[in-house]
């Protein structure tokens, strides 16, 4: 392969990893939430709230760190509302999650009114001098924006948490059999609330990535359905963090490849090409996760079910 082609490939991979960040962050957050036995369909709403909070805080304070913090807090506030309703008032999780999304869309539009049309400086990519200049791997390994690395790190941490840490085992136990966990003395509702809040923070960050880094602006509904894709990724990745990340990369990568294919004038209908990311991601994740016993072992047994400590 020529250097140009290698460079083009590297650029494509960089673009793919960036496109995947919001999907992966939201999917990882939802994965933790679902592992504890709670299904929160409010991902899109929490992402939008995070996006608007991040943008508003960054514009107001001039600090992107504050923006990211605000996004996490906003996502957590939404998640807290969801957690309080579903865990303590025992409302239906599916209905409450959908309501949370609708609420998030409206709330973010309302809060964002004064911020439409403003701009912020986008987050700079990491630069390690000479290292970032190495052909092919320079940009890819050493020249991404910090959130790309954060996403990778978070995937590793979550994998480790569920596979190796005692606390992760407790969360899984709560998701498998809340009554058993309750019987041996674990505070099931608190643990679930913690997982829900973590999910909210991740979704907030995912939204912040859109409004601060990817397309640094606030426009209503700017997540454009990414929350729903993240939700689907969790299921197709059979609740495994690395597979969720792989799914997000696949989805982002194929989205970008199909745009390149269109630009090169390949004679395929653009509607079919637009479908490819969805198709390919589903096919690949279904193929690598097709062992039904393992799916059953991984899927949290009590997901979506109302739990009452006395019941």
């Amino acid at each position, binding site marked *: 392969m020529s250097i140009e082609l290698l460079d*083009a490939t590297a*650029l494509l991979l960089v*673009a793919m990893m960036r*496109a995947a960040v*919001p999907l992966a962050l939201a999917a990882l957050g939802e994965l933790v939430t679902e592992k504890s036995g709670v299904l929160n369909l409010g991902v899109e709403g929490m992402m939008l709230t995070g996006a608007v909070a991040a943008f508003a805080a960054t514009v107001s304070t001039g600090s992107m760190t504050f923006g990211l913090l605000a996004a996490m807090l906003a996502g957590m506030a939404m998640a807290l509302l969801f957690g309080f309703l579903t865990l303590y008032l025992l409302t239906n999780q599916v209905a409450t999650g*959908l309501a949370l*999304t*609708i*609420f998030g*869309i*409206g*709330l973010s*539009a*309302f809060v*964002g*009114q004064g911020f*439409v*049309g*403003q*701009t912020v400086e*986008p987050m700079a990519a990491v630069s390690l001098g000479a290292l970032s200049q190495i052909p092919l791997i320079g940009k890819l390994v050493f020249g991404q924006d910090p959130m790309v690395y954060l996403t990778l790190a978070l995937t590793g941490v979550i994998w480790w948490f569920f596979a190796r840490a005692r606390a992760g085992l407790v969360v899984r136990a709560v998701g498998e059999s809340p009554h058993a966990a309750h019987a041996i003395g674990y505070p099931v509702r608190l643990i679930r609330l913690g997982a829900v809040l973590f999910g909210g923070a991740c979704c907030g960050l995912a939204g912040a990535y*859109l409004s601060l880094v*990817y*397309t*640094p*602006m*606030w*426009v*209503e*509904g*700017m997540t*454009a*359905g*990414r929350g729903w894709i993240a939700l689907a990724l969790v299921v197709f990745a059979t609740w495994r963090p690395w597979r969720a990340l792989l799914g997000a990369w696949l989805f982002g990568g194929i*989205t*970008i490849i199909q*745009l*390149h294919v*269109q*630009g*090169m*004038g390949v*004679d395929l*209908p*653009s*509607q079919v090409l*637009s479908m490819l990311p969805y198709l390919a991601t589903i096919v690949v994740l279904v193929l690598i996760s097709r062992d039904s016993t393992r799916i059953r072992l991984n899927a949290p047994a009590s997901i979506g079910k109302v739990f009452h400590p006395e019941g």
Partner: protein
Amino acid sequence: MGMFKGTRLAAVAAVLAGLLGGAATAQAADPLKVGFVYVGPVGDLGWSYQHDVGRKALEAHFGDKIKTAYVEDVAEGADAERVIAQFGQQGYDLVFTTSFGFMNPTLKVAKKFPKTKFEHATGYKTADNLGIYDARFHEGRAVIGTIAGHMTKTNVIGYIGSFPIPEVVRGINAVTLAARKVNPNVQVKVIWVNSWYDPGKEREAAETLIAQGADIITQHTDSPAAVQVAEEKGVWAFGQASDMAKFGPKRLLTSIIDDWSGYYISRVQAVMDGKWKAETTWGGFKAGMVKLGALNPAIPADVQKAAMDVKTGIEGGTLDPFAGPIKDQDGKERVKAGAALTDKDLLSMDWYVEGVQGKLPK
């Protein structure tokens, strides 16, 4: 977006406000009630945003002689019919429905509420109390095509398309014809994102076009994402629907601006004067429905002049963006020298002119 468009809180609140307002004003001096139905959020900074700018201009112009209300983010389909009918039931005098997909619902509702006057944007079905209106955005595109043809160094213009419908194809062709008139080597590369509004995907499309050699980006999608990418990568861009100079202070060449204010004011005035009739309006530069943002000072003076000549030519009727000879992609002559495409041809355009790369998806 998508699934929950119609049920949004804002939408519900607007309808409630309309209901309450309707009850409250019944005793007062009866202002003229004008309703708007938007397909997107008013904060999209594009299509719906500009219609709402028009609505605000109405309020500023007529003050308390009118009362306006809007419902945003209305899904095209059954939900639209419900929202439009709501305005009819509340006795609104004039209702603007501002997306192509509202055509059939508007027609249905118009028949049920003969006292209410309706106006539908970008459609083609009319009734005694249903007029239609649209703007000739391709006139603006002829101007930006002229600028693009002069400014490109790589001779590749990148074009982000939303959906392959006649309006969008017309825009692509207008840019291509104008650019090749001043620079016959220009090729236009089109990428379809199959969405009116997805900032992330618009960004990816813009990046792709730049990677494939485009040094000018133009788009028929609603967010300023493509302009931001151009600013970041140091290529040229154009704003779409609203003035997007803020998103590309160095790199935005100009914007095509939809301006509905004048039209809306004239229609409301017509209702007040009792002179409103269901009409078909398709105005461009001359009618003030299409405007141009400020030209970037980076555009050389002779190019600025060439652009303005195209604009004044179109305004004065001496220049037709779709005058022959026009060849299509296969080199077949579609319009002879001395002839031009008619409005009917333009409204059903489903072929690319020579110079557009790739096949038009059907």
